[in-house]
């Protein structure tokens, strides 16, 4: 074993792992590494291969190419024809359906993995009680697993996966079967638990809010490949591809032609119909590609970064476009407005500090540092 690497020790690494279903490459040369104590999330739309990746790590699928290394042990290697079955990988996993065994009580469900590890009865009782108390299931240990609510089942599944202190906890869309309010609460609980116990987590979800709020790092998966890896904020603010940009959060996209650069910012002439054609917006070049002058380009900005002000405000500057409020809904803490920007429709949130009207003309400011320019 190499020297202790401290906090940056790698718990799991995947080296060009590929999984074929028929001729489809469900997982396509995925490489990643997860450090001790971090929450690493695979985020992507359904069918993108993220769950298959998780199942490969768990040992529920055999990789067709590549290697999986868990705490310095090769647990699966297609080339060397190695495969360690799931029961010998010391992982914890919470399934989407929770997979609470219906013929066992809450206690028996949690005790099962400890029994398999030949832990003495007294220690089992002690450990199970402690972990059940940790998630507030203390009083329910004799209840049949099937007589629990969705949230309780999920806590039970979590207990069962944590009680034997696995090297890595796998979460497969664990919140998707809960209602919205419970989902938010469980998210908080899991994060708290993870920070307290310092467990390493590989988390799979299609829900970007879950991913952004829970993760230390996110890998956006698309078509079996990893599009981008990074901390949530970095992914949100500096997406490396159009897919990541559109998958995370809302974006407003305008089309234009690239004009001559001025300083840091790239100037793009916006092509909108009517009054707006010929207006110039500046932004930074998004991905590491070159854009020729005159090339067609997309301008992208997060709606919340658009600065909204009523028409005729004093701050008449560059990088502004006019807009009109089509419909306005009051949703409590703010207004939700559908604003037309030429032929585009944009949903913007307006502060309730001011009265807004449907049909009102707006000035929409596009701060150049928030605008990114993409090849069309």
């Amino acid at each position: 074993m190499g020297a202790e690497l401290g906090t940056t020790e790698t718990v799991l690494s995947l080296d060009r792992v590929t999984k074929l279903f028929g001729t489809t490459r469900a997982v396509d040369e995925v490489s990643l590494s997860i450090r001790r104590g971090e929450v690493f999330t695979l985020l992507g739309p359904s069918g993108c291969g993220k769950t298959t990746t998780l199942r490969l790590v768990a040992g529920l699928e055999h990789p067709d190419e590549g290697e999986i290394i868990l705490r310095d042990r090769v647990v699966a290697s297609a080339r060397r024809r190695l495969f360690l079955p799931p029961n010998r990988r010391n992982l914890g996993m919470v399934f989407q359906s929770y997979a609470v065994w219906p013929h066992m009580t809450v206690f028996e469900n949690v005790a099962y993995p400890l029994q398999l590890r030949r832990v003495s009865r007294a220690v089992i009782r002690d450990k199970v009680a402690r972990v059940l108390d940790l998630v507030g299931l203390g009083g329910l240990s004799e209840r049949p697993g099937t007589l629990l609510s969705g949230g309780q089942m999920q806590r039970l599944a979590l207990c069962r996966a944590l009680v034997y202190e696995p090297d890595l906890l796998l979460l497969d869309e664990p919140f998707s079967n809960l209602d919205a309010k419970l989902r938010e609460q469980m998210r908080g609980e899991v994060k708290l638990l993870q920070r307290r116990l310092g467990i390493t987590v590989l988390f799979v979800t299609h829900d970007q809010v879950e991913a952004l709020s829970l993760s230390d790092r996110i890998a956006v998966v698309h078509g079996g490949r990893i599009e981008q890896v990074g901390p949530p904020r970095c992914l949100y603010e500096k997406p490396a591809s159009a897919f990541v940009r559109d998958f995370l959060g809302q974006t407003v996209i305008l089309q234009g032609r690239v004009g001559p650069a001025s300083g840091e910012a790239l100037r793009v002439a916006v092509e909108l119909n009517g009054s707006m054609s010929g207006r110039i917006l500046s932004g930074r070049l998004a991905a590491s590609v070159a854009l020729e002058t005159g090339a067609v380009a997309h301008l992208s900005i997060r709606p919340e970064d658009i600065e909204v002000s009523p028409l005729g405000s004093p701050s008449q500057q560059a990088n502004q476009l006019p807009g009109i409020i089509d419909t306005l809904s009051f949703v409590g803490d703010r207004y939700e407005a559908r604003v037309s920007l030429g032929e585009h429709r944009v949903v913007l949130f307006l502060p309730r500090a001011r009265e807004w009207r449907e049909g009102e003309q707006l000035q929409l400011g596009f701060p150049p540092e928030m605008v990114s320019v993409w090849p069309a």
Partner: protein
Amino acid sequence: MAGLTEAIEVPGARRLELQGVLCTLVLALVALVVVFPLVLVALQSFQVAPPGQPVRYGLDGWRAALGEPGLRTALVNTFTVTFVRQLLSLPLAVLLAWLLARTDLPGRHWFEFAFWAAFFLPPFTVTLSWILLLDPEYGLLNTWLAGLVGVHPFNIYSFWGIVWVHVITGSLTVKVILLTPAFRNMNASFEEASRVAGAGGLRTALRITVPVMAPAILSVLLLGTMVSLQTFEVEQVLGLPFRFFVFSTTIYDLLVTRVPRYDAATALAVLVLAAMLPLVLAQQWLTRGRRYTTITGQFQSRVHRLGAWRLPALGLAAAFVVIVLAVPVVFALLGTFMKLFGFFQIADRWTFANWTNVLGDETFLRSLHNTVVLATSTAVATIVVHSLIAYIVVRTRYAGRRFLDVISWLPFTVPGIILGLALLWLFLGVGFLRPLYGTTALLVIAGVIAGMPLGVQIIKSGLGQLGGELEEASRIAGASWWTTYRRIVLRLMAPTLLAVGMITFVGAARNIGNFALLTTSANRPLSMLQLDYVAQRKLEEAVVVACVIMFVSLGGALLARLLGLRSGSLG
């Protein structure tokens, strides 16, 4: 990465291959006893030389099957009987299932259970009890009506007699017990939307409920057709006296005469097999697409109030329960105490002698012993074999699993008598299997094959409901495959497996068609003994044996029900 040198290497690839070998072994075995015999049957249809003479190939058998008037009539009879049975039983079954599942019919759960029990009645026993009522000369119903109108209106030894017995044994009950859960699980909002739109109860049932259920109904119709083509004893008992043959009795006839016509018999068999295969494929296709019409589980479907129709509906359901369950049970029992079976008019007609005769008979005791050994072994073998097949089909990625799935359905495509014939060839034709001929083991194999479509189907749907994640969770928690199978799969599947064992036990105890050609005096079970008694015109003894089988069947039905098997898992 320095740590890599420490990696533990596990020969996983070899483990994978082992699983593949195991699956291939199962597939090969199942193919040997199911597919290979059927191929033999097909080949045999071209072998025209009489038994004992040098092998000669030709088309005489096929010419006979297609050309000889007797054989052609048998084919026509088969399809006419099947068609008329389905035509009569389907609308009735839909009506009864709708009443039991979607209305406030009083006691509907009891009615459902009664149909479930009736499904388990051996057709042979039912036939005998209806002879008591509808015999042209002495039948109780006939003599009673003759007192009123002066003529004997019914004759059970007729086309309509055969159709009647079929409708109330196989055709109706199986459809009711399969359709009732399907109707119950239907999303009620389809019906409610129709009611809100202004349609009455009857119009809603006809315009919405039945069309929405069409795939389920069609699938049950196909299944019913296949099940009904399997029986052989009804025609054997009722058809013989007036020379009415269907193909299964014709085949039997061709085979048990002094010079067996194997070529013609097998040619007929191949024709039927060819006709049945599309039905099986259609059935499988339908059940696959059925999901979208029905919603299971949490859905609480509201029932339709019958109102003024409550009493007539109750009367109708009760009448059918009397016909399919009470009449057969009561009259079969009554028949066992008659000095002369069917003669209610003679003086001093009741006796216990039949019971004492049969129970004291050496032959009966030997057959009883054979049946107990046969049924128990078949049940145990079935649980092992069918669960293995179901597990491979549902849970593994084995390349041949689709093929295995189709093979497990094949026994449904061939009438029992042909399967028996096919196995006969297998065991006489393949050298190392020949010693098994005349043993109970041969009958056990036949029983396991005969029950395969139903058994595998039930276990498959049980495994499907189990959800693979329950097993995967156990593997990840640190359990080996075997521990997982023992502590999770078997524990959760135990009721289903026991129920399948129970059903197989009953099936083996009453099976005639599959065993008819495979029994010798050494391994003859009760079901064949009763047929032999009939052939010797000892109807009193036959009905005693039939009653014993009937009680075994009803006991099995009750046990399977208590073990938690619901008819819904049969489809």
